[in-house]
């Protein structure tokens, strides 16, 4: 029975020779993840199971990253609940403010996820780790509770869409443009319940950071997971960050796909998703004159070192336009340190950006850059739903770090080439 990458990983985790799309399986989990928003209800549900303690204290990761450093008393109480639970159950991978970063940037960096793993996380962007050739998917708090108690989760084996990549992205065009381009093509439910599997010779030209960005937004097409083939770049990344053993899975040549989409990376244009859906993808000729109030560079989608460097390259020697707020979020402490060491942070500050501690912050309308009525933000985050970053009458334009930085300079939605 021919299988996709995802199907092979799930078969192994379920102890089966093979699986087929639509089959319901019970899989062993390599890691269970939660944050300060989703873990508190999971702790409550976990208590109802009455199992005493967690299945494996080394296979749970708790990252308080959403409303931290805490924005108000209620969020402080939630973070406290997570902290106490971590202490009580001696959770090895609890990351306090000072060590923590945005969960989906932090876990790969800490080497907690490698190729072949099966990961669930009570956060929809858990699909990020597909960049490493792992199966990872978002679930809710109750699934997280069950996962912490039993080390298992049930899955319906997904069908897959295959993306064959060729060519190489042009200068100033990034993985963010590619994934927005894809979501624009297939829609916000274009991969509903399915895997998005990426491969082809063009894949090797994409940096790991680009791959994280692309896998991260698979959920924005409704996908269960996004996954990349493992190549030398993946192996090198894992070697640098992890001592865990990894397993590479490749799809069978005759694996079945519901659709195969060929993409020439050299033809991918700058792409921005207009309000209020990630599928509202537009290329520069259709941007028109969109005046903005704020840019945000950060998030689990685009807060990694290459994202900050890309923004700094655009902003070097230039100034953020008067009246525009430019807020930058290094995704982790490591990213922050690297960006300080290589001068990226100084470049951004001199251009007029403000640098925040790692946090999800404004991405989900939490704190650190909330929008008022009528305001517009060009953001490197992942969702532009109604009211996502603040007031229901505010607007979010999803873009790459390059486009966000260029827009900060002009005060309107701008392609990098216009100012470089």
């Amino acid at each position, binding site marked *: 029975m021919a299988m996709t990458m995802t199907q092979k990983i799930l078969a192994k985790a379920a102890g089966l020779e093979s699986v087929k799309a639509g089959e*319901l399986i019970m899989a062993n989990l390599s890691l269970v993840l939660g944050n300060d*928003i*989703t873990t*508190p*209800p999971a702790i*409550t*549900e976990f208590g*109802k*199971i*009455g*199992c005493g303690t967690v299945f494996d204290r080394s296979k749970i990761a708790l990252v308080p990253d*959403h*409303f931290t450093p805490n*924005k*108000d008393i*209620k*969020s402080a109480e*939630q973070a406290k609940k997570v902290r106490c639970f971590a202490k009580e159950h001696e959770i090895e991978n609890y990351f306090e403010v000072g060590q923590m970063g945005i969960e989906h940037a932090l876990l790969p960096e800490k080497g907690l996820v490698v190729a072949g793993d099966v990961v669930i*996380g*009570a*956060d*929809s962007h*858990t699909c990020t780790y597909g960049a490493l050739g792992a199966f990872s998917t*978002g*679930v*809710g*708090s*109750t*699934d997280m*509770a*069950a996962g912490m*108690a*039993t080390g298992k989760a*049930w899955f319906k084996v997904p069908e897959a869409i295959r993306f064959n990549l060729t060519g190489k992205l042009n200068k100033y065009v990034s993985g963010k443009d590619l994934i927005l381009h894809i979501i624009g093509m297939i829609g*916000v*439910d274009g991969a*509903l*319940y399915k895997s998005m599997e990426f491969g082809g010779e063009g894949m090797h030209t994409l940096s790991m950071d680009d791959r994280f960005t692309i896998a991260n937004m698979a*959920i924005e097409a*409704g996908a*269960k997971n996004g996954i990349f083939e493992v190549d030398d770049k993946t192996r090198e990344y894992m070697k640098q960050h992890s001592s865990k053993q990894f397993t590479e899975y490749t799809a069978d040549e005759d694996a079945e796909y519901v659709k195969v989409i060929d993409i020439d990376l050299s033809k991918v244009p700058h792409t921005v998703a207009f309000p209020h*859906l990630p599928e509202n993808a537009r290329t520069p000729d259709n941007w028109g004159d969109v005046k903005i109030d704020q840019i945000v560079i950060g998030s689990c989608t685009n807060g990694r070192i290459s994202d900050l460097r890309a923004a700094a390259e655009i902003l070097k020697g230039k100034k953020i336009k008067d009246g525009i707020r430019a807020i930058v979020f290094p995704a982790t402490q490591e990213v922050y340190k690297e960006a300080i060491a290589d001068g990226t942070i100084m470049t951004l500050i001199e251009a007029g950006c403000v640098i925040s501690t790692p946090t999800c912050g404004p991405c*989900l*309308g*939490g704190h650190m850059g909330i929008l008022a009525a009528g305001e517009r933000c060009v953001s490197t985050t992942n*969702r532009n*739903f*109604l*009211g*996502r970053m603040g007031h*229901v009458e505010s607007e979010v334009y999803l873009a790459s770090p390059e486009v966000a930085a260029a827009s900060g300079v002009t005060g309107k939605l701008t392609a990098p080439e216009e100012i470089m």
Partner: protein
Amino acid sequence: MKAKGCVIKYGDNIDTDVIIPARYLSTSEPGELALHCMEDIDKTFVGRVKKGDIMVGGANFGCGSSREHAPIAIKASGISCVIAKDFARIFFRNAINIGLPILECAQASEDIDEGDEVEIDFDTGVITNLTKNRSYQAAAFPPFMQEIISAGGLIAKIREEK
């Protein structure tokens, strides 16, 4: 098991940010979440929803974040069932896991209008529109999911198995 109620209808791609905006996620207390359910797209919902009412959506209902607070808010509002053309997968899992009844039925999603009175037979999956005098057949749940539903949610099922 049956449900009967008046329909409150929404469109396609109802995301979890509008079901319960993140600014209210500093709590997971159901009653508090219910006070803000749907407010960003429908300020009248909280005031007019009655216990037993049925929510009908279009395609990709519940897309976006994994917050279980979304189905919890809907359930705590008194909604007895959500019918949609299809659901985003995390919302689907969450609803089953917390015991919020949901049904996928494209025909019902298209045909039912705001204010219609609808009766649902969960054993057969038949949705009857009492206002229009028509009925629709929803997709059946596989036995595995039916077990979670009849146990009263995932946690109850795990307790049963212990």
